[in-house]
């Protein structure tokens, strides 16, 4: 007995595109796609036509032309004779510098404030609440300008440090100068610096000593020097972690944990110290010369204002994320850890935080992205980030608004995606392992 009947073969009718659910979704998607392409086409066509009316071409050749302007904060070599492209790279590095510094400080501030906000101490708890609400609810731009204004208006001028009875003095044994042009801190130079700058310095200082001059210039430092030092430091930390793992294994096997801290400390400090001494590390302190302080590292007001404001502002948001993450771990976990005899500090670091991280990381990524993009407010205090160089002066001098803005957009897009990708790798390492 056959119950099945053959479905009559229907011929396709046009109305099915709307009334037949099998086809309807395709119809809607096709229409949406056509509209989207139409809108894009209109935008591009409009732009092309307007450029034509203005008599402008679309051309990235300006990037190879000499820029002609100077940039105060440059992490790579740059003069006013360098190209607009190089000016853009200087700006990009400045953006990345403030973004990295900002993310690091915001995380530290955020975690501390987030944990302290859960404190049972009334004063601490409320102080943190004031911090969080104060910074979260006032626009970032105001904080940037406020910190900048405080730095420029109320700090002493470099000339105030002059004279027998100066109005202002340097801090930390004459090594840090806080002025209204920024903070000057000591830098580390290497007498045996690798690279051309080091060789030149050695020749000059030998000549200076032979000539009997008292104070030869301070030695330079090159990227290679720092890569060597950081490489050794990284290897040492890896060594220390290996030592810790060995101690863990010993603890599991025997129940006795060998003391690790002195070995770890020696493993981390000694090789780094040795390589620093081998390179001939010396500290170059800032000193007053002419109009300004010379030597040392100059942290400009613009950098400090932007960095602090971004960190404090984003830190307030991170504090709330951290608090939420910790509250998301059920109270039973704490009680269980306490029952096992873990002290409160160990409970937090071994039980609560690892679980809280799973909740914390994803929104943290978006805070990092916000901070990075907010760094384009640098223009308010004249910090020379990529928005100020490529998106500001270069556009103004060359008239290539469209090209400049497209490049700028592309850069922020790539940077944000890179940060997300990095943070996603970290997220994968801390998230719940499903088996």
């Amino acid at each position: 007995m056959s119950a099945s009947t053959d479905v009559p073969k229907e011929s396709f009718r046009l109305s099915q595109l709307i009334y037949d659910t099998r086809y309807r979704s395709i119809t809607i998607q096709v229409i949406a796609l056509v509209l989207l392409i139409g809108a894009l086409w209109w935008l591009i066509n409009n732009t092309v036509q307007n450029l034509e009316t203005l008599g402008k071409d679309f051309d990235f050749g300006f990037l190879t032309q000499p820029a002609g302007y100077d940039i105060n904060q440059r992490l790579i070599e740059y003069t006013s004779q360098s190209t607009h492209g190089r000016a853009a790279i200087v700006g990009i590095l400045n953006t990345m510098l403030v973004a990295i510094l900002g993310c690091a400080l915001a995380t530290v501030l955020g975690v501390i404030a987030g944990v302290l906000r859960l404190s049972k101490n009334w004063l601490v708890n409320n102080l943190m609440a004031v911090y969080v609400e104060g910074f979260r609810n006032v626009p970032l731009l105001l904080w940037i300008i406020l910190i900048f204004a405080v730095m420029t208006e109320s700090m002493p001028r470099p000339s105030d440090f002059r004279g027998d009875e100066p109005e202002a003095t340097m801090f930390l044994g004459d090594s840090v100068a806080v002025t209204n042009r920024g903070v000057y801190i000591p830098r580390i130079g290497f007498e045996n610096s690798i690279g051309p700058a080091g060789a030149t310095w050695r020749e000059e200082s030998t000549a200076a000593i032979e000539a009997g001059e008292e104070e030869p210039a301070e030695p330079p430092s090159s990227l290679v020097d720092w890569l060597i030092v950081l490489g050794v430091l990284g290897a040492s930390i890896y060594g220390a972690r290996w030592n810790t793992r060995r101690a863990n294994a010993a603890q599991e096997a025997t129940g006795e944990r060998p003391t690790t801290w002195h070995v770890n400390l020696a493993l981390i400090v000694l090789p780094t110290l040795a390589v620093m001494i081998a390179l001939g590390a010396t500290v170059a302190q800032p000193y007053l010369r002419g109009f300004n302080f010379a030597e040392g590292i100059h942290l400009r007001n613009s950098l400090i204002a932007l960095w602090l404001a971004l960190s404090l502002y984003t830190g307030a948001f991170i504090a709330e994320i951290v608090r939420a993450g910790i509250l998301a771990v059920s109270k039973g976990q704490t009680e269980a850890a306490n029952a096992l005899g873990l002290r409160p500090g160990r409970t937090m670091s071994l039980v609560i935080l690892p679980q809280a991280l799973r909740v914390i990381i994803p929104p943290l990524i978006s805070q990092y992205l916000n901070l990075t993009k907010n760094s384009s407010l640098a223009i308010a205090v004249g910090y020379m980030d990529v928005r100020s160089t490529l998106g500001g002066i270069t556009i103004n001098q060359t008239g290539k608004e469209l090209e400049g803005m497209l490049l700028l957009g592309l850069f922020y897009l790539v940077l944000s995606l890179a940060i997300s990708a990095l943070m996603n790798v970290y997220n994968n390492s801390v998230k719940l392992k499903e088996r």
Partner: protein
Amino acid sequence: MKKSVFLGALTIAGLAAGAGSAATLDDVTARGTLNCGVTTGLVGFAAPNANGEWQGFDVGVCRAVAAAVLGDPTAVEFVPTTGQTRFTALASGEIDMLARNTTWTFSRDVDLKFEFTGINYYDGQGFMVPRELGVSSAKDLDGATVCIQTGTTTELNLADFFRTNNMAYEPVPIETNAEAQQQYLAGACDVYTTDASGLAATRATFETPADHVILPEIVSKEPLGPLVRHGDNEWGDVVRWTLNALIAAEELGVTSANVEELAAGTNNPEINRMLGTEGELGAMLGLDADWAKRAIMAGGNYGELFETHIGENTPIGLARGLNAQWTEGGLLYAPPFR
């Protein structure tokens, strides 16, 4: 866990949306107001007074054009622009003309596609320092911190000046003149550099102007003038000849006081042609015969504008110098009205 990747669509939002309509003169007449780009505030050149009305030497040019085209010197919408925003504002059509001490350079004229309609102030870049620094020459400024408005020609001249003299400096980039003033007075920079006229105007607003010196070196040529978009020659002509009318009026002795009387007819044919009692010059511009008369009445001729806003009897106290008529040893030389 499933991963999905969303690719967001990049949208280039309405770029150059209102750009470049050809007939600016028609647009201005239809709108009934002139959109004129000025500085964000430089006393003497363009700044709002106590009643909030824009006043100054550059503002005078805007008002003269508005008077010539619309018959009403107050029918001007002033749009404050910074060194960075001015060109975009003009290119996009947000403003009809820019009168904002802007230097006439080759690349701005040719590459940025603007049309300079003349020069209303012959200027040069100077340096201002506090007197207590004891600096007497710009050559002593090695290692100094310099406040500089970004997006200007002065920024480029500054780089060239210090490079060719083998000196180092620390630039402090700044958006507007007001900000520069604040930074300079706070001592965040040793030197403020901009056009010498701008320095004089800025110094005049200080509490104790005598504590600041403008160094003798003028390191560049800065011919400042109004500009319009390239490609709309009719509108360019209107602005150019309004400015020329102001300059010629001073040369010919036509002032806001006697223009009414002279417009009745004189025995000087050039005055007659300019003021519309002879010939068809107004109609050739697409305006009526009284255009130049109204422009002169708006704020006076070039000399009157100069004396009222930036001349020696004002706090700014600029001498005519290069900006005197050619008959008096200056560079002002309006082409004939013929």
